[in-house]
């Protein structure tokens, strides 16, 4: 039988070969068996490979930026070269790494396992979304090798539509294309969570990882089309001179910003919500305790998804929008911090009287909490109108959103990678190296980005590569931190790959943790469950002490 037939959602008995029953990794060894697979686990691996490649390309651009900023004259790159470096860094990291990162790899691999299903609801659609992602990625590579694009990842008009001289339309096309991959993944997750939960897996028994992916999927499906339309309008103005955004053609430049941020602010939550889901799992497993306030944590994801749609105007406090509109957006931006604060306090409370493990994934989770808190608080500062007027478009903003997206999302991504790697591969890796890389990433990250808060408040504009020499020391510190961070990001690549061949077998549940994904062998068989499980208890059903014990 072919892989395509095998990937159909399993209803009842699926014929399996002995190899498939052992592990999804053994179900075919040909390239074709990977490229035409409809197994959610194999597609997750395909995504993992693709986004890792883009992570390193985007990281290389970041390295160029940081090296160039070592000197105030910007000796390494030309003005145009610097602009292209930060544009490609932003485009790749946002759309080809951060947005797909956790959902398409861990969401794809784990949601069916966590809810007791044999695959996602639409396995072939899942494969299609990977191909769409790759197509978008290839267009981006084309932009990169043919000279790049110089608009910033935000593509503000009329700079992008009428003035920039890079490959603006091709870059917009790449983002347009990859958006469909996001939409299809979101749709697939929503339908899967609604229809494929195992008997007894009520909404109140869903792991918080699944809740956060559900909330993320709603945003993906509702917000991404707005971005597609916006970029199409921008490209139409550039190609055909249709006046939409350029005042010289009768357009309105602020309209673009409204449309763009209507997508791109929710996109921030697309990046952080799955990370929060990961951290909820990691904190519970680290503490060996049920997550404190399950319903508060679950619904805070939905609250973030909903309120996240109403805060886009906080990107425009100095853009020329009405001051009354700014006040409303400021208020809502403060409100959207409440559900995030609830999560942080609940994670902390979960640790209380737990059995806390300091294995690598849990160090990444603690690191996430620390960095996310700093990113969140500086976000609140940016929501305060008079403060934003000063630090808007300075490196203060850069530091803030890197604390959320890199300190937060990437730490969670590495936490997830270290937590579920034994499940993905069946192997364990070096715990020592894992701990070291968690610590190096935390230190390197702070050294890179904390100086940028100071620089921003001092008045260092973003997207400047020629700057006031008084700022050089702080820039050198930041670049030193980035070097440490770069090494720390390559480390896991080395020891995780090493573990593939030399790691000890992990067993089904190495941590040990609750959750259906830990009840199947590592790596899981092709169809996940021999028999669809029946769920009889709440998630995180760890034993709770009634009396003092010996740990």
């Amino acid at each position: 039988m072919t892989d395509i037939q095998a990937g159909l959602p399993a209803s009842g008995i699926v014929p399996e070969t002995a190899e498939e029953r052992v592990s999804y990794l053994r179900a075919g060894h040909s390239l074709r068996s990977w490229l035409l697979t409809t197994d959610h686990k194999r597609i997750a691996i395909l995504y993992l490979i693709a986004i890792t490649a883009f992570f390193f390309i985007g990281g290389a651009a970041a390295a160029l930026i940081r090296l160039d900023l070592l000197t105030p004259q910007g000796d390494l790159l030309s003005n145009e070269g610097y602009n292209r470096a930060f544009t490609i860094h932003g485009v790749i990291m946002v759309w080809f790494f951060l947005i797909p990162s956790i959902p398409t790899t861990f969401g794809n691999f784990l949601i069916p396992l966590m809810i007791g299903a044999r695959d996602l609801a639409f396995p072939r659609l899942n494969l299609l979304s990977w191909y769409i992602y790759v197509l978008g990625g290839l267009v981006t590579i084309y932009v990169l090798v043919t000279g790049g694009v110089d608009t910033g990842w935000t593509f503000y008009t009329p700079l992008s539509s009428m003035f920039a001289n890079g490959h603006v339309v091709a870059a917009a096309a790449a983002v347009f294309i990859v958006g469909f991959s996001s939409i299809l993944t979101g749709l697939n997750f929503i339908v899967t969570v609604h229809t494929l939960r195992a008997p007894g897996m009520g909404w109140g028994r869903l792991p918080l990882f699944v809740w956060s992916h559900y909330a993320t999927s709603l945003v993906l499906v509702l917000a991404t089309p707005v971005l597609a339309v916006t970029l199409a309008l921008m490209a139409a103005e550039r190609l055909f001179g249709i006046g939409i955004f350029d005042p010289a053609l009768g357009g309105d430049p602020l309209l673009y910003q409204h449309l763009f941020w209507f997508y791109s602010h929710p996109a921030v939550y697309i990046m952080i919500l799955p990370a929060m889901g990961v951290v909820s799992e990691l904190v519970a497993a680290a503490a060996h305790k049920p997550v404190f306030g399950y319903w508060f944590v679950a619904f805070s994801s939905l609250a973030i998804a909903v309120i996240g749609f109403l805060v886009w105007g906080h990107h425009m406090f100095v853009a020329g929008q009405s001051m009354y509109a700014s006040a409303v957006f400021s208020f809502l931006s403060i409100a959207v911090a409440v559900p995030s604060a609830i999560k942080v306090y609940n994670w902390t409370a979960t640790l209380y009287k737990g059995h806390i493990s300091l294995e690598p994934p849990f160090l990444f989770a603690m690191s996430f909490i620390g960095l996310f808190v700093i990113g969140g608080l500086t976000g609140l500062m940016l929501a305060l109108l008079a403060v934003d007027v000063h630090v808007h478009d300075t490196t203060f903003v850069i530091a803030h959103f890197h604390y959320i997206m890199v300190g937060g999302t990437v730490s969670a991504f590495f936490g997830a990678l270290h937590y579920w790697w034994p499940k993905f591969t069946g192997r364990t890796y070096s715990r020592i190296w894992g701990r070291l890389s968690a610590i190096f990433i935390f230190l390197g990250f702070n050294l890179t980005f904390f100086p940028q808060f100071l620089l921003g408040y001092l008045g260092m504009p973003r997207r400047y590569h020629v700057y006031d020499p008084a700022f050089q020391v702080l820039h050198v510190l930041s670049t030193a931190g980035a070097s440490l961070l770069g090494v720390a990001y390559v480390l896991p690549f080395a020891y995780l790959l090493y573990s593939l061949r030399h790691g000890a077998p992990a067993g089904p549940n190495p941590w040990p943790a609750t959750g259906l994904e830990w009840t199947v062998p590592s790596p899981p068989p092709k169809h996940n469950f021999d028999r669809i499980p029946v769920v009889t208890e709440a998630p995180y059903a760890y034993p709770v002490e009634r009396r003092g014990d010996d740990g």
Partner: protein
Amino acid sequence: MNGFIPLWPDAASAHAGQVDQLVIAFTVLMVALTAPVFVLIVVFAVRYRRGKAANRTHRVNRSVWLETSWAAIPFLLTLFFFVWAAWLYFDLHRPPADAMEIDVVAKRWMWKFQHPEGQREIDDLHVPAGRPVKLTMTSEDVIHSLFVPALRVKQDVLPGRYTTLWFDADRPGSYPLECTQFCGTDHSLMHGRLVVMAGQDYARWLAGTQGGDTLAAEGRALFRSLGCSGCHGPGATVHAPKLEGLYGRPVPLQDGSTVTADEQYIRDSILEPNSRIAAGYPPIMPTFRNLVDEGEVQQLVAYIKSLATQPAEPTP
């Protein structure tokens, strides 16, 4: 902003000091709200480390009150700062009526300033200390943003639109002035200095700088040379709106609405005369889009504003 590692920017206005106070007070609140998280994570990780003996007895009840309080209390405390910050922000949008007006045109990659007395500057802006200054800004091409860190103010500068920014710098000195909205190749070179000068120094600077005529007088000359006076001047035979006493007054439009004749309206009427037609006049005025640049439009606007004090002739 001295020392090996600068940590805090210069403050050249009262507003800057107020923003700093707000930031410091808010930081104190944030540290107070999050220190428990950082401390408790470390304390719990040490005290309840796996394998370590500890008293782990605890109740499993849901704690709705605890949840509600740690959501609501920080939120309410932050709202106090929301009001404080909004108050300062609203101030930035209410320039005093007696502010000195300077026109700004941003262009890739330079700033052009026009003083009311006619002085023109590129990239550097000289202003008197202790006197409110209002900048009326527009762009010839893309969106720029004028940022003076020492004043803690910033405003985007848009093509096709006037935005304003006002400040009252009270400490003489020379401060960086930057473009903070990415505007293409030489974005990071689009910067200059804001030079705040004591009263007499500024007067001396004005006198020593070749200014030519005042902005309004230059606008008047332009008004003649472009032939505007042929229709809008006294004794014109064409049925065109009179401009004396126009500025700041309501203008009834053909579509029944009313608009205040501010800088934006006058600018639009020169460049896009058919977009908002005054009631009772035929739409016969041609656009001057290709004949004047934004700087010259500002001169014309200054001239028409200078006519505001003259009596309006009765409209037909």
